[in-house]
């Protein structure tokens, strides 16, 4: 029990961030992270020693987030959300409209808006691209680890990731304009 508490303490932030980047909703991400830890605790006897524990654990949270996405696909707030809507940020504050270029924009606010746009573009990716992009480009897992988590061959991981990057680049360019 105490050992598991240490594991929760050690991995909770990364687990939460994986879920958050996949779901785009802080509260849902907390819920999914919690469920993922509980699922891990219940299934801990099935953990194979030859596998890496963190890979096994993050595989669970990705799976939980994927299931949650399927459940919430029909929810109105996800269907109707647009870039012009006020959005709740990770710190719980609510931003206003996109900064008007003619105004003196607050740098911090602009940064938040860009981050929100990036998050929204990630959320618009298909789930199979999104989870690989989150795991590789945001969380920095290796291709091998991602292959273990998602039970995919290395070539599939890479091809999906490259496509995810290309889609994201196009999506961001359409929202933010010239990126380079």
């Amino acid at each position: 029990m105490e050992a598991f508490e240490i594991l929760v303490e050690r991995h909770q932030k990364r687990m939460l961030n994986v879920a958050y980047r996949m779901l785009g909703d802080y509260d849902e991400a907390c819920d999914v992270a919690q469920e993922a830890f509980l699922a891990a605790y219940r299934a801990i006897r099935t953990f194979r020693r030859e596998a890496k524990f963190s890979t096994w654990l993050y595989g669970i949270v990705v799976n939980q987030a994927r299931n949650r996405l399927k459940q919430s696909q029909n929810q109105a707030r996800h269907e109707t959300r647009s870039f012009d809507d006020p959005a709740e940020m990770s710190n719980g504050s609510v931003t206003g409209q996109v900064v008007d270029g003619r105004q003196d924009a607050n740098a911090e606010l602009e940064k938040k808006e860009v981050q929100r746009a990036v998050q929204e573009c990630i959320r618009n990716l298909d789930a199979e691209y999104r989870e690989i992009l989150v795991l590789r480009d945001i969380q920095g897992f290796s291709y091998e680890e991602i292959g273990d988590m998602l039970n995919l061959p290395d070539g599939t991981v890479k091809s999906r990731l490259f496509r995810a990057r290309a889609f994201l680049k196009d999506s961001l360019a359409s929202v933010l304009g010239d990126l380079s």
Partner: protein
Amino acid sequence: MTCKEMEIRLAGLIDDALPEEEKNRAEAHLRSCEACRKALADLRAADSLVKGLEEVEPPPWLKTRVMARVREGARGKESILRRLFYPLHVKVPIQAAATVLIAVVAWNVYRAGEPEFRQAAPSPARVQGAPTAAATATAPDTSIGEAEPAARKKQVPAQPPAAREDRGARKPGPVRGAEKADSAVAGGPLEASGPAQVMNGDVSKGAGTAAKETAGREAAQAAAPGLSAAGSARADLAISLHVKDPASAADGAEALLRDLGAPSIERTDREGVVTLTARILPEHLEAFREKLRSLGAVRERGPAAPRPGGPLAIRLEIRPE
């Protein structure tokens, strides 16, 4: 390699994920293609934006809640015995089953012992006019209430089988409150004859009524010591009374006996013949005879042979004319 083919491979150049051969081909294409160089720059910018996303912090309650639910789940896996008897939960199966089992066992025990209970319990006929000789024989100086349970315990096994059969064949007669009360009177020298009455099978009859003893009756007994037992079998004097209505005449005779201080009156009613058995003091005998004559024709069977100074055991048979 066309720009279309290059588009996906460029994404692999960002983190050097392309195989060496493809990487060389892609770099060669980039040197000659402005659009692909722009695309690669956009890919790097997008990657930079993605990597620049701030991390969110877990709420303080996350770990607490996870561990609370983990502990809750661990409790659920505790031993089955502990779960079955955990007092805060209503464990209907085990507790209801235990209740039913206890009820069934108790019922079976009762049913198995029912004949014994019936034998041991005083029947209404036995109660009528039954002396408490055994009770007083075992504890003559104790109060009635205290003597009664001990008397009941000892009376039942003391009865000979023949006596039990005799009482079992008797018809249960009407129980009269006064008789029942009188039967409970205990104590006094005459009760030393208790063992003889036990042999006659009349011992247990009044034991159950001992609790109905009252202080007034105790006073009456003190006034007439030695009259507590009827002693039906060994009558000093047997009297036949022939009347038109034996039942009402028996009522009158019974009242008369009580008036004469008979503490315990045994009454049986068999085939129209009412038999009263009681003890009275010799000095009351003549008055008793006189009163009986007013009720009907009196015949005395057998000579009265009272013990000197002791009470008379009278057996009065009231028959129809």
